């Protein structure tokens, strides 16, 4: 245990201690300045990001903790989403959650720590614990408005569905362990191929294990048909938490999925392996997600519910890249999540600010926003158009890459479904823009975000436009990170 490079754990340990520090700060100070906790959370996340840039690359605990490029790429996404969630929380922190400010920020950081551990996990037990560490703070955060029935309902629903899906996931993971005799994903891959090469087939136990793992992670990703909880939870939870849920915890699920399936079970991603081919199962689920998410989103009147269905659909697009199970596929998934971070966090931030001002989440109440707050209406339009995938914004490049990966891997039908549904999605995204710009109603509402929320919006807009026009650096990095899987 002496020849290990312990320093690669520093970012995680720092963020954990920082979260404890925020709890302590909340207990210690007598709430003189409500903003200090939020700023210190943002500072902590920034420092963690810097530490991540310094201390990375290497393995620890006999490979249980891997600080590889994929992990770092996604850790940046996690830290970014936590940063933006904290930044957009300042307004609710001064009002709705003033009794539990410290816990609120602390739990966001804890969840981020969990995601970071999860993305570094190359072993089933660690992966599972990381996943739990990600979701348990989120159960509490979803129910954070304790006086609001919708929020408590959201927390309870999320808790029950989450616990249930964790149990299914754990069952699937233990079946994988039982079949291969190891919890290490790479050893698992080797053992499975050995059995397959020697005997030509593997019992139905593997199908059962794969279905259970897909279901377990599918619940976390809100992948159809495991999405039922998402709209209610997204609507009821505090809006910054909804944003964090839809970006951070989804990215965590994506990493877990990539680690188990695209790395561990890569041998079973082709037609040859029927019926052990997980690719086709996931492709069908992705198609269902895109169709159902986009069509249901058309009928929504509440912006949070609409964004919930839109994020159900978005995960379908991500899965197109995932089933490609190639270097380009994983890179496109990474790039997609990176752009999705900016677009979705930005859209939810606007929704948060708007809700603080008006107390309403109805799409109709956005009418005339372009006249009173032209900048924010423009921001919102950029976020929504990026989610729809309009060039030259980031969402276009992301969708293009995902589709390219899908076609390269032979899933042409899936890409056709994806193309058609993104045309549908344009309708409801554009509908909000229409409401903001061309509504006959007299505008009354003017929004003034706090400084951190403004910062979040600015970062998002710059990110979308910059990485949309110059996808190069991020794409290169994503391709680099996809190399670790050795296809």
């Amino acid at each position, binding site marked *: *245990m002496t020849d290990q490079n312990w320093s690669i754990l520093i970012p995680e340990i720092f963020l954990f201690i920082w979260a*404890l520090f925020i*709890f302590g700060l909340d*207990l210690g100070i007598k709430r003189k300045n409500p903003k200090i906790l939020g700023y210190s959370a943002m500072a902590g996340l920034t420092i963690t990001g810097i530490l991540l840039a310094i201390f990375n690359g290497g393995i620890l605990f006999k490979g249980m903790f891997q600080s590889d490029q994929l992990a770092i790429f996604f850790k940046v996404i996690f830290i970014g989403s936590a940063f933006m969630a904290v930044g957009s929380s300042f307004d609710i922190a001064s009002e709705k959650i003033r009794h539990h400010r410290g816990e609120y920020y602390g739990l966001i950081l804890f969840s981020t720590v969990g995601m970071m551990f999860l993305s570094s996990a190359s072993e089933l037990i660690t992966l599972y614990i990381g996943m739990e560490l990600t979701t348990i703070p989120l159960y509490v955060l979803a129910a954070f408005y304790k006086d609001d029935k919708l929020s408590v309902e959201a927390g309870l629903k999320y808790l029950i569905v989450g616990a249930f899906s964790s149990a299914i996931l754990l069952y699937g993971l233990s079946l994988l362990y039982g079949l291969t005799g190891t919890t290490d994903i790479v050893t698992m891959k080797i053992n499975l191929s050995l059995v397959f090469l020697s005997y030509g087939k593997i019992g139905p136990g593997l199908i059962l294990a794969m279905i259970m793992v897909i279901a377990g992670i599918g619940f976390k990703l809100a992948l159809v048909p495991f999405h039922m909880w998402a709209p209610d939870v997204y609507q009821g939870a505090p809006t910054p938490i909804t944003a964090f849920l839809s970006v951070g915890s989804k990215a965590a699920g994506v990493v877990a999925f990539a680690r188990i399936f695209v790395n561990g079970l890569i041998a079973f991603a082709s037609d040859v392996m029927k019926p052990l081919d997980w690719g086709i199962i996931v492709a069908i689920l992705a198609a269902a997600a895109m169709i159902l998410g986009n069509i249901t989103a058309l009928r929504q009147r509440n912006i949070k519910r609409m964004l919930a269905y839109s994020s159900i659909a978005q995960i379908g697009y991500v899965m197109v890249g995932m089933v490609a199970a190639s270097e380009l596929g994983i890179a496109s998934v990474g790039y997609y999540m990176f752009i999705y971070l900016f677009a979705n966090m930005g859209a939810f931030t606007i929704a948060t600010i708007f809700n603080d001002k008006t107390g309403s989440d109805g799409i109709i109440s956005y009418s005339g926003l372009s006249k009173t707050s032209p900048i924010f209406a423009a921001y919102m339009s950029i976020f929504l158009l990026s989610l729809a995938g309009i060039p030259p914004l980031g969402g276009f490049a992301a969708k293009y890459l995902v589709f390219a990966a899908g076609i390269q891997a032979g899933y042409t039908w899936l890409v056709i479904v994806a193309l058609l549904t993104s045309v549908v999605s344009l309708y409801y995204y554009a509908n909000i823009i229409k409401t903001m710009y061309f509504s006959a109603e007299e505008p009354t509402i003017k929004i003034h975000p706090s400084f951190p929320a403004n910062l979040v919006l600015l970062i998002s807009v710059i990110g979308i436009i910059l990485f949309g026009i110059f996808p190069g650096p991020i794409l290169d990095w994503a391709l680099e990170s996809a190399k670790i899987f050795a296809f």
Partner: protein
Amino acid sequence: MNEYAAVLIFLFVGIGVVLFTFFLARLVRPSNPYKAKNQNYECAEPPIGSGWIQFNNRFYIFALIFVVFDVEAIFLFPWAVAFGQLGLYALIEMIIFIVILLFGLFYAWKKGVLKWV
């Protein structure tokens, strides 16, 4: 058969003792049940209402925290058993583990949930 046979014997002896006591009591006691005697006993008064009451929700917090520390105890148990082979390294591990959890206790304490007002 193996070392668990002792557990089984304990189980049977335990059940046996209870059954035997009941049997013995039946042998020596007189038997004349009547209505007042079969009533539930509540400080020599006829009972009012149901025996079911709504618990204070503090019990619930205590129980929740207890579950967490029970899980901690489950980790301590094998540690204590194998401590001889594991040595100093394991001691440090366990200290880290407990210190992290102690923060939770400290938090609960500071928040005043351990106080019974």
